[in-house]
Protein backbone atom coordinates (compact mmCIF):
# COMPACT_ATOMS: atom_id res chain seq x y z
CA UNK A 1 0.00 0.00 0.00
CA UNK A 2 1.26 3.44 -0.87
CA UNK A 3 0.39 6.09 1.76
CA UNK A 4 2.35 8.90 0.10
CA UNK A 5 0.18 12.03 -0.36
CA UNK A 6 -0.70 12.86 -3.95
CA UNK A 7 1.77 15.22 -5.56
CA UNK A 8 0.31 18.66 -6.20
CA UNK A 9 1.26 19.64 -9.75
CA UNK A 10 3.59 22.60 -9.99
CA UNK A 11 1.50 23.83 -12.91
CA UNK A 12 -2.08 22.70 -13.43
CA UNK A 13 -3.96 23.99 -16.46
CA UNK A 14 -7.64 23.25 -16.92
CA UNK A 15 -9.97 24.11 -19.77
CA UNK A 16 -7.74 26.88 -21.11
CA UNK A 17 -9.29 28.63 -24.10
CA UNK A 18 -7.98 31.48 -26.20
CA UNK A 19 -9.26 32.83 -29.49
CA UNK A 20 -8.13 35.73 -31.65
CA UNK A 21 -11.30 36.97 -33.32
CA UNK A 22 -12.85 33.95 -35.03
CA UNK A 23 -9.67 31.90 -34.83
CA UNK A 24 -9.74 29.52 -31.89
CA UNK A 25 -6.14 28.80 -30.90
CA UNK A 26 -6.56 27.04 -27.54
CA UNK A 27 -9.71 25.00 -27.19
CA UNK A 28 -9.77 23.61 -23.66
CA UNK A 29 -6.18 22.73 -22.78
CA UNK A 30 -5.72 20.42 -19.78
CA UNK A 31 -2.14 19.87 -18.63
CA UNK A 32 -0.36 18.98 -15.39
CA UNK A 33 3.36 19.49 -14.82
CA UNK A 34 4.85 17.65 -11.86
CA UNK A 35 7.36 19.51 -9.67
CA UNK A 36 11.03 19.16 -10.67
CA UNK A 37 10.23 17.50 -13.98
CA UNK A 38 10.53 18.72 -17.53
CA UNK A 39 7.47 18.79 -19.74
CA UNK A 40 7.91 19.29 -23.47
CA UNK A 41 4.94 20.45 -25.52
CA UNK A 42 5.23 19.57 -29.19
CA UNK A 43 3.03 20.47 -32.11
CA UNK A 44 3.05 21.98 -35.56
CA UNK A 45 3.47 25.64 -36.34
CA UNK A 46 0.45 27.73 -35.42
CA UNK A 47 -1.08 25.12 -33.13
CA UNK A 48 -0.97 27.41 -30.08
CA UNK A 49 2.18 26.30 -28.26
CA UNK A 50 3.54 29.84 -27.81
CA UNK A 51 0.08 31.16 -26.96
CA UNK A 52 -0.13 28.55 -24.19
CA UNK A 53 3.17 29.74 -22.68
CA UNK A 54 2.17 33.39 -23.00
CA UNK A 55 -1.09 32.70 -21.16
CA UNK A 56 0.79 31.09 -18.26
CA UNK A 57 3.27 33.99 -18.21
CA UNK A 58 0.48 36.56 -18.13
CA UNK A 59 1.48 38.05 -21.48
CA UNK A 60 -1.92 37.06 -22.90
CA UNK A 61 -5.23 36.87 -21.10
CA UNK A 62 -7.07 33.59 -21.69
CA UNK A 63 -10.78 33.63 -22.53
CA UNK A 64 -11.61 30.80 -20.13
CA UNK A 65 -10.02 28.17 -17.92
CA UNK A 66 -7.67 28.14 -14.97
CA UNK A 67 -3.90 28.16 -14.48
CA UNK A 68 -2.78 26.99 -11.07
CA UNK A 69 0.80 27.37 -9.88
CA UNK A 70 1.51 25.51 -6.64
CA UNK A 71 -2.23 24.95 -6.27
CA UNK A 72 -3.27 28.60 -6.63
CA UNK A 73 -5.09 30.00 -9.63
CA UNK A 74 -3.04 32.92 -10.95
CA UNK A 75 -5.89 34.11 -13.15
CA UNK A 76 -8.00 34.88 -10.08
CA UNK A 77 -5.30 36.46 -7.93
CA UNK A 78 -4.82 40.16 -7.29
CA UNK A 79 -2.51 41.65 -9.91
CA UNK A 80 0.40 42.22 -7.53
CA UNK A 81 0.12 38.68 -6.17
CA UNK A 82 0.03 37.17 -9.66
CA UNK A 83 3.08 39.24 -10.60
CA UNK A 84 4.92 37.91 -7.55
CA UNK A 85 4.12 34.33 -8.55
CA UNK A 86 5.15 34.97 -12.13
CA UNK A 87 8.39 36.57 -10.96
CA UNK A 88 9.42 33.00 -10.04
CA UNK A 89 9.25 31.99 -13.71
CA UNK A 90 12.28 32.30 -16.01
CA UNK A 91 11.72 32.43 -19.75
CA UNK A 92 13.97 31.70 -22.69
CA UNK A 93 12.42 33.31 -25.77
CA UNK A 94 12.62 31.77 -29.21
CA UNK A 95 14.88 34.46 -30.65
CA UNK A 96 16.60 35.24 -27.36
CA UNK A 97 14.86 38.63 -27.02
CA UNK A 98 18.01 40.17 -25.57
CA UNK A 99 17.82 43.91 -24.92
CA UNK A 100 20.01 45.28 -27.67
CA UNK A 101 20.46 48.63 -25.90
CA UNK A 102 22.22 46.92 -22.97
CA UNK A 103 25.52 45.04 -22.83
CA UNK A 104 25.41 41.30 -22.16
CA UNK A 105 26.10 41.52 -18.43
CA UNK A 106 23.27 44.00 -17.91
CA UNK A 107 20.94 41.69 -19.84
CA UNK A 108 21.84 38.84 -17.52
CA UNK A 109 21.58 40.94 -14.35
CA UNK A 110 18.37 42.69 -15.45
CA UNK A 111 15.95 40.45 -13.55
CA UNK A 112 18.20 40.31 -10.49
CA UNK A 113 18.23 44.11 -10.26
CA UNK A 114 14.50 44.40 -10.98
CA UNK A 115 13.70 41.93 -8.20
CA UNK A 116 16.29 43.53 -5.87
CA UNK A 117 18.05 40.18 -5.50
CA UNK A 118 21.44 41.80 -5.88
CA UNK A 119 22.89 45.26 -5.19
CA UNK A 120 23.90 47.35 -8.20
CA UNK A 121 27.58 47.11 -7.30
CA UNK A 122 27.50 43.32 -7.24
CA UNK A 123 25.39 42.86 -10.36
CA UNK A 124 28.22 42.54 -12.85
CA UNK A 125 30.07 39.94 -10.79
CA UNK A 126 26.89 37.91 -10.36
CA UNK A 127 26.15 38.17 -14.07
CA UNK A 128 29.62 36.83 -14.89
CA UNK A 129 29.07 33.90 -12.53
CA UNK A 130 25.85 33.00 -14.34
CA UNK A 131 27.51 33.45 -17.74
CA UNK A 132 30.15 30.95 -16.61
CA UNK A 133 27.38 28.46 -15.87
CA UNK A 134 26.36 28.53 -19.53
CA UNK A 135 29.95 28.28 -20.73
CA UNK A 136 30.68 31.93 -21.49
CA UNK A 137 33.75 33.79 -20.22
CA UNK A 138 33.63 37.09 -18.33
CA UNK A 139 34.82 39.02 -21.40
CA UNK A 140 31.48 38.26 -23.08
CA UNK A 141 29.77 40.39 -20.46
CA UNK A 142 31.13 43.57 -22.01
CA UNK A 143 29.89 42.73 -25.53
CA UNK A 144 26.62 43.90 -27.05
CA UNK A 145 23.98 41.37 -28.14
CA UNK A 146 24.49 42.29 -31.81
CA UNK A 147 28.13 41.18 -31.53
CA UNK A 148 27.17 37.62 -30.56
CA UNK A 149 26.52 34.58 -32.75
CA UNK A 150 23.11 32.90 -32.64
CA UNK A 151 24.37 30.18 -30.29
CA UNK A 152 25.96 32.70 -27.93
CA UNK A 153 22.77 34.76 -27.90
CA UNK A 154 20.83 31.67 -26.86
CA UNK A 155 23.35 31.01 -24.07
CA UNK A 156 23.08 34.58 -22.84
CA UNK A 157 19.29 34.36 -22.98
CA UNK A 158 19.51 31.13 -20.97
CA UNK A 159 21.79 32.84 -18.47
CA UNK A 160 19.26 35.66 -18.13
CA UNK A 161 16.44 33.15 -17.62
CA UNK A 162 18.24 31.25 -14.85
CA UNK A 163 19.97 34.22 -13.17
CA UNK A 164 17.26 34.76 -10.56
CA UNK A 165 17.15 30.99 -9.84
CA UNK A 166 13.49 30.63 -10.79
CA UNK A 167 11.20 27.81 -9.60
CA UNK A 168 9.85 27.36 -13.10
CA UNK A 169 11.63 27.68 -16.43
CA UNK A 170 9.95 28.08 -19.80
CA UNK A 171 11.76 27.47 -23.07
CA UNK A 172 10.20 28.61 -26.34
CA UNK A 173 11.76 26.73 -29.25
CA UNK A 174 15.22 26.68 -27.63
CA UNK A 175 17.03 25.16 -30.62
CA UNK A 176 15.31 26.96 -33.50
CA UNK A 177 17.81 28.52 -35.87
CA UNK A 178 20.79 26.62 -34.46
CA UNK A 179 22.89 23.96 -36.13
CA UNK A 180 22.42 20.40 -34.73
CA UNK A 181 25.61 20.52 -32.66
CA UNK A 182 24.82 23.89 -31.07
CA UNK A 183 21.24 22.67 -30.59
CA UNK A 184 22.53 19.71 -28.60
CA UNK A 185 24.83 21.99 -26.57
CA UNK A 186 21.91 24.27 -25.66
CA UNK A 187 19.72 21.27 -24.79
CA UNK A 188 22.40 19.87 -22.48
CA UNK A 189 22.83 23.27 -20.84
CA UNK A 190 19.07 23.44 -20.29
CA UNK A 191 19.03 19.97 -18.71
CA UNK A 192 22.01 20.88 -16.48
CA UNK A 193 20.47 24.18 -15.38
CA UNK A 194 17.09 22.65 -14.62
CA UNK A 195 18.72 19.88 -12.56
CA UNK A 196 21.06 22.23 -10.72
CA UNK A 197 18.29 24.66 -9.79
CA UNK A 198 15.76 21.91 -9.03
CA UNK A 199 13.30 23.80 -11.22
CA UNK A 200 10.23 22.64 -13.07
CA UNK A 201 10.61 23.15 -16.81
CA UNK A 202 8.20 23.52 -19.69
CA UNK A 203 9.62 23.62 -23.20
CA UNK A 204 7.84 23.96 -26.49
CA UNK A 205 9.47 22.72 -29.64
CA UNK A 206 8.94 20.91 -32.91
CA UNK A 207 12.47 19.52 -32.82
CA UNK A 208 12.05 15.84 -31.87
CA UNK A 209 15.68 15.32 -30.91
CA UNK A 210 15.48 18.33 -28.61
CA UNK A 211 12.18 17.11 -27.12
CA UNK A 212 13.72 13.73 -26.22
CA UNK A 213 16.85 15.32 -24.74
CA UNK A 214 15.04 17.90 -22.60
CA UNK A 215 11.79 16.23 -21.62
CA UNK A 216 10.79 13.77 -18.91
CA UNK A 217 7.29 13.91 -20.32
CA UNK A 218 5.91 15.09 -23.63
CA UNK A 219 2.47 16.43 -24.57
CA UNK A 220 1.30 17.00 -28.10
CA UNK A 221 -1.00 19.88 -28.95
CA UNK A 222 -3.14 19.78 -32.07
CA UNK A 223 -6.15 21.89 -33.03
CA UNK A 224 -5.94 23.70 -29.71
CA UNK A 225 -6.12 20.57 -27.56
CA UNK A 226 -3.70 18.17 -25.93
CA UNK A 227 -4.11 15.02 -28.01
CA UNK A 228 -1.47 12.87 -26.33
CA UNK A 229 0.70 12.90 -23.23
CA UNK A 230 3.31 10.38 -22.18
CA UNK A 231 6.91 9.85 -21.20
CA UNK A 232 9.63 11.14 -23.50
CA UNK A 233 10.90 7.61 -24.05
CA UNK A 234 7.50 6.61 -25.47
CA UNK A 235 7.36 9.56 -27.85
CA UNK A 236 8.54 7.79 -30.98
CA UNK A 237 6.25 4.86 -30.39
CA UNK A 238 3.17 6.52 -28.95
CA UNK A 239 0.49 4.54 -30.77
CA UNK A 240 -1.33 7.82 -31.47
CA UNK A 241 -1.59 8.42 -35.19
CA UNK A 242 -1.36 12.21 -34.91
CA UNK A 243 1.78 11.98 -32.76
CA UNK A 244 3.29 9.26 -34.95
CA UNK A 245 2.80 11.31 -38.09
CA UNK A 246 4.32 14.38 -36.45
CA UNK A 247 7.28 12.67 -34.80
CA UNK A 248 8.17 10.67 -37.91
CA UNK A 249 7.52 13.57 -40.26
CA UNK A 250 5.21 11.58 -42.52
CA UNK A 251 3.42 13.20 -45.44
CA UNK A 252 0.36 11.02 -44.98
CA UNK A 253 -1.79 11.22 -41.90
CA UNK A 254 -4.50 13.09 -40.05
CA UNK A 255 -2.59 16.37 -39.80
CA UNK A 256 -2.03 16.55 -43.54
CA UNK A 257 -5.61 15.48 -44.21
CA UNK A 258 -6.70 18.44 -42.13
CA UNK A 259 -4.44 20.77 -44.10
CA UNK A 260 -5.82 19.56 -47.43
CA UNK A 261 -9.42 20.44 -46.63
Amino acid at each position, binding site marked *: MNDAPPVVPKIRIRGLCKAFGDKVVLDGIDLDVTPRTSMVVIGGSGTGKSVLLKCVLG*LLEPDAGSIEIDGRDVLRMERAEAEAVRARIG*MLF*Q*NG*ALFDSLPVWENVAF*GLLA*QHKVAKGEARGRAEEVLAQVGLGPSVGALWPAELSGGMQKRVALARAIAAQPDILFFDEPTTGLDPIMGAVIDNLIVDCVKRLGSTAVAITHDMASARRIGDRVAMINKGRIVWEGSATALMDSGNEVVDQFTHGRHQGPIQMELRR
Partner: protein
Amino acid sequence: MSKLLDAVAAVGRAVFGACRLTGRIALFGLDGLSHLARPPLYGRLFLRAFLDIGYYSLPVVALTAIFTGMVLALQSATGLSRFNAESAVANLVVLSMTRELGPVLAGLMVAGRVGAAMAAELGTMRVTDQIDALQTLSTNPMKYLVTPRLLGGLLAMPLLVVVADVLGVLGGYVIASVKLGYNAEVYLTNTINFVQTDDVVSGLVKAAVFGFLVALMGCYHGYNSRGGAQGVGAATTYAVVSASVLILAFDYVLTELFFAR
Protein backbone atom coordinates in the same frame (compact mmCIF):
# COMPACT_ATOMS: atom_id res chain seq x y z
CA MET B 1 -30.46 53.97 -51.32
CA SER B 2 -28.26 51.11 -50.20
CA LYS B 3 -25.19 52.93 -51.56
CA LEU B 4 -26.11 55.96 -49.50
CA LEU B 5 -26.49 53.78 -46.41
CA ASP B 6 -23.14 52.15 -47.11
CA ALA B 7 -21.52 55.58 -47.36
CA VAL B 8 -23.13 56.71 -44.08
CA ALA B 9 -22.04 53.46 -42.43
CA ALA B 10 -18.48 53.96 -43.68
CA VAL B 11 -18.38 57.49 -42.28
CA GLY B 12 -19.82 56.21 -38.99
CA ARG B 13 -17.19 53.47 -38.80
CA ALA B 14 -14.43 56.00 -39.48
CA VAL B 15 -15.74 58.35 -36.77
CA PHE B 16 -16.06 55.54 -34.21
CA GLY B 17 -12.61 54.28 -35.20
CA ALA B 18 -11.13 57.74 -34.67
CA CYS B 19 -12.87 58.06 -31.28
CA ARG B 20 -11.61 54.63 -30.24
CA LEU B 21 -8.06 55.48 -31.30
CA THR B 22 -8.18 58.82 -29.47
CA GLY B 23 -9.37 57.05 -26.33
CA ARG B 24 -6.66 54.42 -26.58
CA ILE B 25 -3.94 57.02 -27.03
CA ALA B 26 -5.28 59.10 -24.12
CA LEU B 27 -5.35 56.03 -21.83
CA PHE B 28 -1.86 55.06 -22.98
CA GLY B 29 -0.57 58.56 -22.14
CA LEU B 30 -2.30 58.60 -18.75
CA ASP B 31 -0.92 55.15 -17.93
CA GLY B 32 2.56 56.35 -18.86
CA LEU B 33 2.26 59.48 -16.73
CA SER B 34 0.74 57.63 -13.78
CA HIS B 35 4.04 55.79 -13.26
CA LEU B 36 5.69 59.10 -12.36
CA ALA B 37 3.98 58.81 -9.00
CA ARG B 38 5.02 55.19 -8.44
CA PRO B 39 8.67 54.24 -7.98
CA PRO B 40 11.02 53.04 -9.31
CA LEU B 41 11.78 55.82 -11.77
CA TYR B 42 14.40 54.98 -14.35
CA GLY B 43 16.66 58.05 -14.17
CA ARG B 44 19.18 56.79 -16.71
CA LEU B 45 16.49 56.19 -19.32
CA PHE B 46 14.96 59.60 -18.62
CA LEU B 47 18.37 61.20 -19.08
CA ARG B 48 18.84 59.37 -22.37
CA ALA B 49 15.46 60.56 -23.67
CA PHE B 50 16.16 64.08 -22.39
CA LEU B 51 19.52 64.21 -24.18
CA ASP B 52 18.07 62.71 -27.37
CA ILE B 53 15.53 65.49 -27.57
CA GLY B 54 17.26 68.38 -25.87
CA TYR B 55 20.87 67.93 -26.91
CA TYR B 56 21.21 65.68 -29.96
CA SER B 57 18.38 67.53 -31.74
CA LEU B 58 20.17 70.85 -31.28
CA PRO B 59 21.97 70.97 -34.66
CA VAL B 60 18.88 70.36 -36.78
CA VAL B 61 16.70 72.68 -34.68
CA ALA B 62 19.40 75.36 -34.61
CA LEU B 63 19.79 75.34 -38.39
CA THR B 64 16.02 75.42 -38.89
CA ALA B 65 15.62 78.33 -36.47
CA ILE B 66 18.47 80.40 -37.92
CA PHE B 67 17.26 80.08 -41.50
CA THR B 68 13.66 80.69 -40.47
CA GLY B 69 14.68 83.91 -38.68
CA MET B 70 16.66 84.99 -41.74
CA VAL B 71 13.79 84.32 -44.14
CA LEU B 72 11.36 86.01 -41.79
CA ALA B 73 13.48 89.19 -41.69
CA LEU B 74 13.77 89.26 -45.49
CA GLN B 75 10.09 88.58 -46.12
CA SER B 76 8.82 90.98 -43.49
CA ALA B 77 11.16 93.74 -44.69
CA THR B 78 9.82 93.54 -48.23
CA GLY B 79 6.23 93.10 -47.07
CA LEU B 80 6.25 95.83 -44.46
CA SER B 81 7.92 98.31 -46.82
CA ARG B 82 4.59 98.47 -48.68
CA PHE B 83 3.14 100.13 -45.60
CA ASN B 84 6.26 102.11 -44.73
CA ALA B 85 6.53 99.99 -41.60
CA GLU B 86 10.06 98.62 -42.02
CA SER B 87 10.82 99.50 -38.42
CA ALA B 88 8.49 96.69 -37.31
CA VAL B 89 10.75 93.96 -38.73
CA ALA B 90 12.44 93.29 -35.38
CA ASN B 91 9.06 93.13 -33.65
CA LEU B 92 7.62 90.76 -36.20
CA VAL B 93 10.61 88.44 -36.12
CA VAL B 94 10.75 88.12 -32.33
CA LEU B 95 6.99 87.74 -31.98
CA SER B 96 6.79 85.09 -34.72
CA MET B 97 9.74 83.14 -33.36
CA THR B 98 8.76 83.09 -29.70
CA ARG B 99 5.05 82.58 -30.09
CA GLU B 100 4.81 80.32 -33.13
CA LEU B 101 7.75 79.35 -35.26
CA GLY B 102 10.17 78.41 -32.49
CA PRO B 103 7.95 75.80 -30.85
CA VAL B 104 6.20 74.60 -34.03
CA LEU B 105 9.31 74.16 -36.16
CA ALA B 106 11.31 72.64 -33.31
CA GLY B 107 8.37 70.29 -32.64
CA LEU B 108 8.19 69.21 -36.28
CA MET B 109 11.95 68.66 -36.45
CA VAL B 110 11.93 66.62 -33.23
CA ALA B 111 8.93 64.64 -34.49
CA GLY B 112 10.92 63.66 -37.58
CA ARG B 113 14.09 62.89 -35.67
CA VAL B 114 13.20 61.62 -32.21
CA GLY B 115 9.56 60.55 -32.65
CA ALA B 116 10.55 58.31 -35.55
CA ALA B 117 13.47 56.87 -33.58
CA MET B 118 11.26 56.14 -30.56
CA ALA B 119 8.68 54.37 -32.71
CA ALA B 120 11.35 52.34 -34.49
CA GLU B 121 13.11 51.35 -31.25
CA LEU B 122 9.95 50.35 -29.38
CA GLY B 123 8.52 48.72 -32.48
CA THR B 124 11.62 46.58 -32.91
CA MET B 125 11.48 45.69 -29.23
CA ARG B 126 7.84 44.64 -29.65
CA VAL B 127 8.34 42.43 -32.70
CA THR B 128 11.47 40.78 -31.26
CA ASP B 129 9.71 39.95 -27.95
CA GLN B 130 11.92 42.31 -25.93
CA ILE B 131 8.84 43.99 -24.42
CA ASP B 132 7.44 40.58 -23.40
CA ALA B 133 10.87 39.75 -21.96
CA LEU B 134 10.74 42.90 -19.80
CA GLN B 135 7.45 41.70 -18.35
CA THR B 136 8.87 38.27 -17.54
CA LEU B 137 11.75 40.00 -15.74
CA SER B 138 9.43 41.75 -13.27
CA THR B 139 9.61 45.07 -15.09
CA ASN B 140 6.58 47.05 -16.18
CA PRO B 141 7.26 47.98 -19.83
CA MET B 142 5.18 51.15 -19.60
CA LYS B 143 7.19 52.35 -16.62
CA TYR B 144 10.51 51.33 -18.16
CA LEU B 145 10.02 52.37 -21.77
CA VAL B 146 7.26 54.94 -21.99
CA THR B 147 7.34 57.06 -18.81
CA PRO B 148 10.98 58.24 -19.17
CA ARG B 149 10.38 59.20 -22.79
CA LEU B 150 7.18 61.13 -22.04
CA LEU B 151 8.93 63.01 -19.24
CA GLY B 152 11.97 63.61 -21.44
CA GLY B 153 9.78 65.11 -24.19
CA LEU B 154 7.87 67.25 -21.73
CA LEU B 155 10.96 68.75 -20.11
CA ALA B 156 13.54 68.87 -22.91
CA MET B 157 11.49 70.59 -25.62
CA PRO B 158 11.12 73.93 -23.79
CA LEU B 159 14.90 74.13 -23.40
CA LEU B 160 15.34 73.34 -27.07
CA VAL B 161 12.83 76.02 -27.98
CA VAL B 162 14.66 78.62 -25.89
CA VAL B 163 17.69 77.96 -28.08
CA ALA B 164 15.54 78.01 -31.23
CA ASP B 165 14.01 81.36 -30.22
CA VAL B 166 17.39 82.94 -29.58
CA LEU B 167 18.90 81.62 -32.81
CA GLY B 168 15.84 82.59 -34.85
CA VAL B 169 16.04 86.15 -33.56
CA LEU B 170 19.79 86.11 -34.20
CA GLY B 171 19.19 84.99 -37.79
CA GLY B 172 16.80 87.89 -38.31
CA TYR B 173 19.24 90.28 -36.66
CA VAL B 174 22.09 89.23 -38.96
CA ILE B 175 20.03 89.69 -42.12
CA ALA B 176 18.53 92.96 -40.93
CA SER B 177 21.85 94.49 -39.92
CA VAL B 178 24.11 93.04 -42.63
CA LYS B 179 21.89 92.78 -45.70
CA LEU B 180 19.02 95.20 -45.12
CA GLY B 181 21.13 97.94 -43.58
CA TYR B 182 19.25 98.29 -40.29
CA ASN B 183 21.06 99.82 -37.35
CA ALA B 184 22.15 96.80 -35.33
CA GLU B 185 21.81 98.47 -31.97
CA VAL B 186 18.34 99.84 -32.72
CA TYR B 187 17.23 96.45 -34.06
CA LEU B 188 18.32 94.73 -30.85
CA THR B 189 16.75 97.40 -28.66
CA ASN B 190 13.48 97.08 -30.58
CA THR B 191 13.57 93.33 -30.16
CA ILE B 192 14.21 93.43 -26.42
CA ASN B 193 11.72 96.21 -25.73
CA PHE B 194 8.97 94.63 -27.77
CA VAL B 195 9.03 91.04 -26.56
CA GLN B 196 6.94 90.31 -23.45
CA THR B 197 7.11 87.53 -20.91
CA ASP B 198 3.78 86.14 -22.11
CA ASP B 199 5.14 85.72 -25.63
CA VAL B 200 8.03 83.61 -24.43
CA VAL B 201 6.08 81.67 -21.79
CA SER B 202 3.27 80.78 -24.19
CA GLY B 203 5.87 79.45 -26.62
CA LEU B 204 7.52 77.37 -23.93
CA VAL B 205 4.19 75.91 -22.78
CA LYS B 206 3.51 75.01 -26.39
CA ALA B 207 6.95 73.44 -26.58
CA ALA B 208 6.27 71.26 -23.52
CA VAL B 209 2.95 70.11 -25.00
CA PHE B 210 4.54 69.40 -28.40
CA GLY B 211 7.40 67.49 -26.77
CA PHE B 212 4.90 65.36 -24.89
CA LEU B 213 2.89 64.75 -28.07
CA VAL B 214 5.97 63.72 -30.06
CA ALA B 215 7.02 61.26 -27.36
CA LEU B 216 3.45 59.99 -26.93
CA MET B 217 2.99 59.29 -30.63
CA GLY B 218 6.42 57.69 -30.95
CA CYS B 219 5.82 55.46 -27.94
CA TYR B 220 2.20 54.59 -28.75
CA HIS B 221 2.80 53.56 -32.33
CA GLY B 222 6.04 51.75 -31.53
CA TYR B 223 4.65 49.96 -28.48
CA ASN B 224 1.63 48.72 -30.41
CA SER B 225 3.36 47.84 -33.66
CA ARG B 226 2.75 44.42 -35.19
CA GLY B 227 3.96 42.32 -38.07
CA GLY B 228 7.75 42.47 -38.30
CA ALA B 229 9.80 44.98 -40.27
CA GLN B 230 6.81 46.24 -42.24
CA GLY B 231 4.91 46.89 -39.02
CA VAL B 232 7.84 48.79 -37.54
CA GLY B 233 8.12 50.89 -40.71
CA ALA B 234 4.40 51.67 -40.59
CA ALA B 235 4.64 52.56 -36.88
CA THR B 236 7.45 55.00 -37.65
CA THR B 237 5.42 56.67 -40.39
CA TYR B 238 2.30 56.91 -38.20
CA ALA B 239 4.35 58.35 -35.35
CA VAL B 240 5.81 61.17 -37.45
CA VAL B 241 2.63 61.98 -39.35
CA SER B 242 0.34 61.91 -36.32
CA ALA B 243 2.76 63.94 -34.19
CA SER B 244 3.12 66.56 -36.94
CA VAL B 245 -0.64 66.90 -37.41
CA LEU B 246 -1.24 67.04 -33.65
CA ILE B 247 1.43 69.71 -33.23
CA LEU B 248 -0.35 71.94 -35.74
CA ALA B 249 -3.79 71.20 -34.28
CA PHE B 250 -2.69 71.79 -30.69
CA ASP B 251 -0.85 74.93 -31.81
CA TYR B 252 -4.18 76.38 -32.85
CA VAL B 253 -5.91 75.25 -29.65
CA LEU B 254 -3.19 76.66 -27.41
CA THR B 255 -3.03 79.93 -29.35
CA GLU B 256 -6.78 80.24 -28.92
CA LEU B 257 -6.40 79.62 -25.18
CA PHE B 258 -3.54 82.08 -24.71
CA PHE B 259 -4.38 84.95 -27.00
CA ALA B 260 -8.06 84.86 -28.03
CA ARG B 261 -9.85 87.90 -26.72
